[in-house]
């Protein structure tokens, strides 16, 4: 990302900001939809992030760190929108795992559906740390910067998120077993 573009945008150049937004938008949207599991909310999160980025850009001290800074703004927007999501829960808007074309042989569509359900039930803070660690592969320090928490908290939050995910998956498996037993009777 060119420092010159960031600096021009900091000084109010809207064309420069548009160029910056073009560079950022695909990654921001991807992270938002991964964390929110909702395309409409992800679009809202990206818009709120970029508007806030434009508004606060003059205060950014190190233009070379713009991407990490924007990620922090995105995470905060995701948390806000996730709370809204819980208030206006509409399951039809969720991204279904049934439509996934998984490039990874380690995961089947059936598993994806089960993981999808478990992931959707997690707190937004847990989803964010799982995306930071398991999708972006960030070390604790970088994940902490992105999520606005100390590196030590990343570890403990990741442990809790993984434990919560396991609990969701095991609950799902038990429910399926119960249904299966019912069918075979």
């Amino acid at each position, binding site marked *: 990302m060119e420092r010159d573009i960031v600096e021009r945008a900091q000084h109010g150049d809207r064309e420069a*900001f548009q160029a910056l937004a*073009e560079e950022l938008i*695909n990654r921001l949207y*991807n992270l938002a939809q991964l964390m929110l599991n909702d395309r409409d909310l992800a*679009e809202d999160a990206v818009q709120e992030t*970029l508007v806030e980025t434009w508004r606060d850009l*003059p205060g950014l001290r190190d233009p070379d760190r713009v991407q990490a800074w924007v990620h922090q703004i995105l995470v905060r927007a995701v948390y806000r929108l996730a709370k809204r999501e819980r208030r206006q829960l509409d399951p039809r808007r969720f991204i279904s795992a049934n439509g996934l074309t998984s490039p990874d042989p380690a995961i089947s569509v059936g598993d994806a559906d089960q993981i999808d359900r478990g992931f959707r039930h997690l707190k937004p803070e847990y989803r964010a740390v799982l995306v930071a660690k*398991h999708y972006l592969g960030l070390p604790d320090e970088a994940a902490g910067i992105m999520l606005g928490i100390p590196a030590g908290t990343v570890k403990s939050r990741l442990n809790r998120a993984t434990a919560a995910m396991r609990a969701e998956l095991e609950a799902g498996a038990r429910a399926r077993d119960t249904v299966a037993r019912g069918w075979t009777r």
Partner: protein
Amino acid sequence: MDAMTSSNDVDLELAAYLRARSTRHAPEGLLDATMVRVESGRQRGWLRVVPQVLDSGSVRQLWTVTRTVAIAIVIGLLSALALMLALVVGSPQLIPPTPTLARPGLITFDAAGRIWVAERDGSGRHPITFGPALDSGPVWSHDGTRIAYVSQHGALAPLEVRVIDERGDNGVTVARVLTDPGPIDWSPNDRNLAFSAKLEGSLLPQLVLVSLDRPEAHSIGPADLGARDPIWSPDGRDIAFERANPEDGLWIIGVDGSGLRRLSTVSGSGEAFRRPAWSPDGRRIVFRAGGDGAHRIFTIDRDGRNERPLDSPFLDNGSPAWSPDGSAIAWTGSAGPGNPPHEIVIVDRDGSNARFLETPPLLEPAVLAWSPDARRLLTFLDDQHTSLVVLDATGRDGPIRIPAASSFGGASWQRLTSP
């Protein structure tokens, strides 16, 4: 996915799930809609005041003084750090204490391009590396705190050697741009790594050493060494290895590159001389030699004297391993070419008192690793799905299988030295 599997594999499955759900492009029109909102919004002007304030004379003077003090403190700290580093690096290699048994900790292994850890009964199996890189060949440090492994970011990318802790955190790349790196061996003081690899421009694998204090790989010995499977002597002074040029043999070299000489006199081909092992007291080396499909196990003194074959009823013998207390040697036995090993031979250090451990068909060549308490052995099964297997060295308990699909065959056992 059953409940147990989901518990063990949840990290891996989550990573795969997130990759499957990722998208490269934001929806069309999102940028335009965002820019409309940006056009109507204003930037926060007060934030621009800060640089102007800093330009005023008194503040600038204060800033200059503060900066000077900060630079002086940083220089002082760096000097102290450099002095400490020089003392540590310049000190002679520590000679390890006489090896003793230790508690076994986690097993590490590679599967599906990731590094995993598991308890010795197979429970708690989970990956500790993630992302698109292919990771393989994990080896625990002697103090059981770190794991070294080979990593490759894409099929055609050069390989790297990395070091992580048991959680997969605090990763550091200690060597880059490698071709065909072989198994990694930690120095006895856990400050250096040895492995074979083709460096840039070399046709034959060289002996590569890298210090974790100053990660910069360098080779020792001549460029045409053709070395494989280096193993550090327990006193840290020498490295034994297989040399394939001009002919196969067991060789030794000082860690400073001096004293290169051939130890073995017997000939060998195929997998001969692969993965030799030092006795824990550093006096002898166990290795295999002989023709392909008809290998025998030999021991030899550090100075090349007393080269002796160990008796075995099997036609082909491989993967010799000295027990951590030095009292026994184990290796795999098979009925010859085309037959996977199906038995493990265990003898006393002098080759006497042979006992046999019947096993499912084993992978060959493979790791055969003693547990740090010398009670169990770890190796790979030659089954369809590739499994690690933990064997009770006494034969009392049955084998424990640990799934390790698509493994490159790297596995190692953590040594717990703390009480």
